């Protein structure tokens, strides 16, 4: 049985009249087990491969190989299906036209699935909405499947009437999770990121066919290790308070603020998807009515809920103080992730400005990104930024745009913009020993520094 623990990092001291409370809440899962084995329902995996005509021979060969390797990683007993995506979505495996559209993995079905993948031929256009809709239908055809995950590979831009893909994404949101990968450089990062973000998945570029197999294996291994099917982040705030934002800040940056559903008038719920043995950090910002100096109050209860069961809870506090030494301190974790959030924003906005031809804005924003990446110790972002800009002064953020930039490097910078780094954590000071946590442990051991996502 999975065990969850929570640690809260914050400066709880507010100056006289202060209202805004920021906290980083780290939730750690241990003993998650294997997908579909917790007894709460079966796991289902769907592999979606772009088989449009744009797929070149080398990419197609690599995609087939990678998809076959992905099937190897799917644990026996897991329900699975394979979709070939083009103008419309084809159910490549299992070969059925009615009834359950997925089969349980075993030696025979794995071999049959791999054989079906081997028969893929590239032709036609790209209509991703149909791919997602078919995946949803297949999951729905097997009621036992309660943990739903798909892997989507595309190499091109979506060719559909505007809005169709968004509608399909909305239909899939909250129903299944989807990790997305783009092969080559002819696909749109923003478009695919929108799918991945909504469907609680990751997005990345596969610049060369030879790394595809490894990526697919990794994605499927991770999916299989998620023994906790579906967890929700719950945030309680006191009467009269306002949630400013709720963001996942590690391992990747995901703004959850708009994805709130109401549990009760004081509590909202945000989707987090399935969990493996991992730690995720959330940045919660709450505005509370100011109280008199010396008063202490709870600004938020941050909980993880499986269904209606709250499995762990962290307390975000507010204490008003007249001691400026206490109130002016910014928690190191909060500062770090605030910087990482701005870093992601600067990278994405800078690349968008560059694409739009606004060189001045691109230079300013990417320069700021270089500065933030250095300040927050995000080595991966620094490396990727240096492939796009010439850095004159890292500390000042003075850069020049490179004239000749490999498009793959630009896309890699874009997809990696939401990956965050962690910094070393001290024992959280904000967890009072008197507050009885709903779980046995309430503290997380310090995470190693530079634990890149």
């Amino acid at each position: 049985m999975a065990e969850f623990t929570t640690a809260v990092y914050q400066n709880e001291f507010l100056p006289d009249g202060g209202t805004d409370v920021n906290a980083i809440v780290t939730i750690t899962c241990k003993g998650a087990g294997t997908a579909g084995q917790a007894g709460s329902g079966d796991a289902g995996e769907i592999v979606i491969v772009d088989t449009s005509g744009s797929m070149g021979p080398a990419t197609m060969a690599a995609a087939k190989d990678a998809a076959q390797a992905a099937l190897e990683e799917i644990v026996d007993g897991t329900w699975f299906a394979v979709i070939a995506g083009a103008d419309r979505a084809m159910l490549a495996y299992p070969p059925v036209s009615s009834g359950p559209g997925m089969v349980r993995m075993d030696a025979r079905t794995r071999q049959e699935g791999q054989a079906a993948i081997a028969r893929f031929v590239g032709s036609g256009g790209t209509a991703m909405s149909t791919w997602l809709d078919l995946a949803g239908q297949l999951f729905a055809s097997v009621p036992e499947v309660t943990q739903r995950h798909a892997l989507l590979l595309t190499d091109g831009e979506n060719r559909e009437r505007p809005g169709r893909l968004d509608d399909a994404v909305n239909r899939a949101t909250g129903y299944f999770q989807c990790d997305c990968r783009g092969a080559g450089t002819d696909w749109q990062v923003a478009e695919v990121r929108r799918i991945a973000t909504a469907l609680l998945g990751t997005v990345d570029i596969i610049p060369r066919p030879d790394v595809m197999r490894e990526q697919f294996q990794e994605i499927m291994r991770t999916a299989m290790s998620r023994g906790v099917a579906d967890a929700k982040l719950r945030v309680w705030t006191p009467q009269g308070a306002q949630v400013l934002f709720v963001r996942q800040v590690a391992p990747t940056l995901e703004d959850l603020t708009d994805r709130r559903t109401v549990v009760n008038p004081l509590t909202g719920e945000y989707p987090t998807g399935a969990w493996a043995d991992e730690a995720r950090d959330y940045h919660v910002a709450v505005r509370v009515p100011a109280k008199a100096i010396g008063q202490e109050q709870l600004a938020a209860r941050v909980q993880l809920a499986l269904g209606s069961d709250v499995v762990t809870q962290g307390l975000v506090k507010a204490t008003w103080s007249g001691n400026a030494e206490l109130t002016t301190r910014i928690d190191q974790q909060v500062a770090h992730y605030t910087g990482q959030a701005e870093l992601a924003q600067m990278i994405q906005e800078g690349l968008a400005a560059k694409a739009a031809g606004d060189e001045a804005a691109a230079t300013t924003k990417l320069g700021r990104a270089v500065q933030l990446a250095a300040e927050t110790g995000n080595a991966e972002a620094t490396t990727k930024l240096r492939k796009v800009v010439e850095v004159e002064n890292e500390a000042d953020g003075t850069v020049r745009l490179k004239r000749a930039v490999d498009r793959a490097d630009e896309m890699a910078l874009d997809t990696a913009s939401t990956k965050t780094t962690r910094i070393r954590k001290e024992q959280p000071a904000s967890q009072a020993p008197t507050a009885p946590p709903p779980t046995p442990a309430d503290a997380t051991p310090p995470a190693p520094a530079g634990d890149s996502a």
Partner: protein
Amino acid sequence: MTESDTATDPAATACPKCGTPVPAGARFCEGCGAQVDAGGTTPPAAAPPADPVDAATDDLGDAPISAPTRRPADALPDPAPAGRRPCASCGGEVGPDLYCTECGTKAPSERDHFTEQPAAWVAGVCDKGVRKHRNEDAMALLAGAEAGSRAVLVVLDGVSNSVDSDVASLAGARAAREVLRMPLPAGMGTPESRAAAVGRVLAEAAKAANTAIVAVTDPDTPNPASATLTLAVLEGTRVDVANIGDSRTYWLPDKGPGVQLTVDDSIAQEQIATGVAKEVAETGQYAHAITKWLGRDAPDISPSLGTLEVTEPGWLLACSDGLWNYASEPSALQDQIRAAGTTDPLALAQKLVDFANAAGGHDNITASLARIGPVSPPPPPPPSATTAAGAPPPPPVQNAPTTPTDEGAHD
């Protein structure tokens, strides 16, 4: 008794060894001495096994040799737990994490402020005060439902420079209460005999408190938990008190002078005994240095005892120095009682705590009270209590059915 055949023919059982008839219920044969109920057959219901009517007691007839004077039915029950109070700020429910589930206000811990009210006429409040960071005072009360029947007030004040004295004091208070759950013994009838018997029980209560304190003390700590103790037992018109340290019990009648029933074991008290003025001694450098205490390093845990007959309406108060620091003289406490203007013990205890907090609240505060006399809310105080102060007191009326007033109660 499925296998028993004695039930069908109780009088005619024969000894299995020699054949001699054996009366029902007998365990050995009269003839040969053999055991006849070897199978463990219990005697039939016709022969009750009660000891008093066993053989050779017929000289006393049916009368029991003795009757228990401390029947289990006389044991006083624990006061009902007060339950978690609603949020002080918005009235919402307080969650298990000790914050309000509505407005998020931090609730004081139950240890930092708690009340007990075992009966309508007995109640107490134990409060952290303003300055201390935790509540090392403790209180444990008992009372019979009938007003004036029987009450037990136990107050301990944990010494703040010792480790875990908050845990220890509460354990000690409850252990002492356990000893006093049954009525006090009457001895052999003479006052001296009663006093000795009562003294022994009160000393046992102090010992039990001490044992509990030592039990929760870390055996390795160089700074073992220690506490004072004051306890008062009211039975009818009689009050018995025991004391160790500088917590106190007072008798504060509605009319006439009050009296401190306990004598502090403190440097201040020793100074007073040698002639130093009370107010000087109690505010001096060693005012709070106690000469006796409970705990692992206590040299002497025998309490000093006192007793008093109370026949008039008034209050029995057991309190810690967190209260009496601000009102040491009985008259000063009576002033506060009068100012509170209530005969509800819980309301009055809270008012006394509020008074001490308003005066600075430098220490933890405990006020536990038993009300002798009517408990109904008194009429509003007369408009000019000060002018009435000089008037001669009306003749004291025992068990007066009328509600006591403040008039002329001042001396």
